[in-house]
């Protein structure tokens, strides 16, 4: 078997002709697609070409994903606390922080719980005051 003649013989075998109806179908589909994506009718065509190519395979899916994100953002904004609630929460947080810090420092706690020993002060002892002996300026005048 001559290799060259064998290959030549193979190359002479004609492929089946393309079905004649395909020409009309395919070109009609292309025309329809062109009309559907006409820049006057589809706003997406105004996007930059790189963006359009990026979104091209499934533009509806991308749009749905974007809508989901917008809905999540809107819900997040609606659920956000007011300024008063935030201030209240902050003050509570400060108290909690202080308690937490104190709990981590037991010595400080002990110091606060021990009785305070105050040095004794020598004071002159007095006897019970006799209310009758109180000198009153008017008494002196009367005497």
């Amino acid at each position, binding site marked *: *078997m001559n*290799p060259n*003649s*064998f*290959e030549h*013989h*193979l*190359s002479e*075998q*004609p*492929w*089946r*002709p*393309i*079905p004649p109806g*395909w*020409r009309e*179908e*395919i*070109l009609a*589909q*292309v*025309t329809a*697609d*062109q009309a559907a*994506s006409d820049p006057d009718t589809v706003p997406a065509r105004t996007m930059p070409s790189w963006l359009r190519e990026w979104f091209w395979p499934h533009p509806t899916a991308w749009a749905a994903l974007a809508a989901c994100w917008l809905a999540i953002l809107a819900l997040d904004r609606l659920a956000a606390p007011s300024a008063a609630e935030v201030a209240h929460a902050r003050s509570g947080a400060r108290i909690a922080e202080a308690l937490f810090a104190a709990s981590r420092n037991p010595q400080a706690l002990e110091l606060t719980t021990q009785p305070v020993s105050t040095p004794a002060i020598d004071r002159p002892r007095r006897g019970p005051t006799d209310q009758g002996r109180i000198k009153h300026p008017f008494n002196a005048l009367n005497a």
Partner: protein
Amino acid sequence: MPTARQLEECYDAHSQALFGYLLNLTRDEHETRDALQEMFLRLAARPALLDGTREPRRYLLRMAHNLAIDRMRRRIVREQAVSALTRETPQRFAPSPDPDITAFREGLAAALDTLPVDQRAVVHLKLWEGLTFEAIAEVLEIPPNTAASRYRYGIDKLRERLRHLYRELS
């Protein structure tokens, strides 16, 4: 955007070659039609695709190759889920009134089926598109040496399988 006339000219100039190549790769007429349809939709959507290409046929063959490979991968996954047994391979070569020639062409189609797709692609581009190994390398984005070795492996297998049929003809 290319005009309808330009697309028609492109179709008339290249569709037969693309049909044969796609049919040889996919071995499925529906896949071939869908791939061809997708190619022309892309050409219509992106008019710059063929701008500056010295060899539009080569560019289109590369596009066809990539589309066919993508579709075959998807089909393999699909058929693993269903069943590949029911699928019939379509007629690929032109019918002939001579029964010997018809038998040879059927044998050739069956022999082509046994080749791995990378060898089948190179053999097709070499035999039926008449491309050089450099051009095949450009179309398939592989080194020319790889294209040559794939061709030799493929043609040896075809020669082995078609030996008897070829002797009867010659």
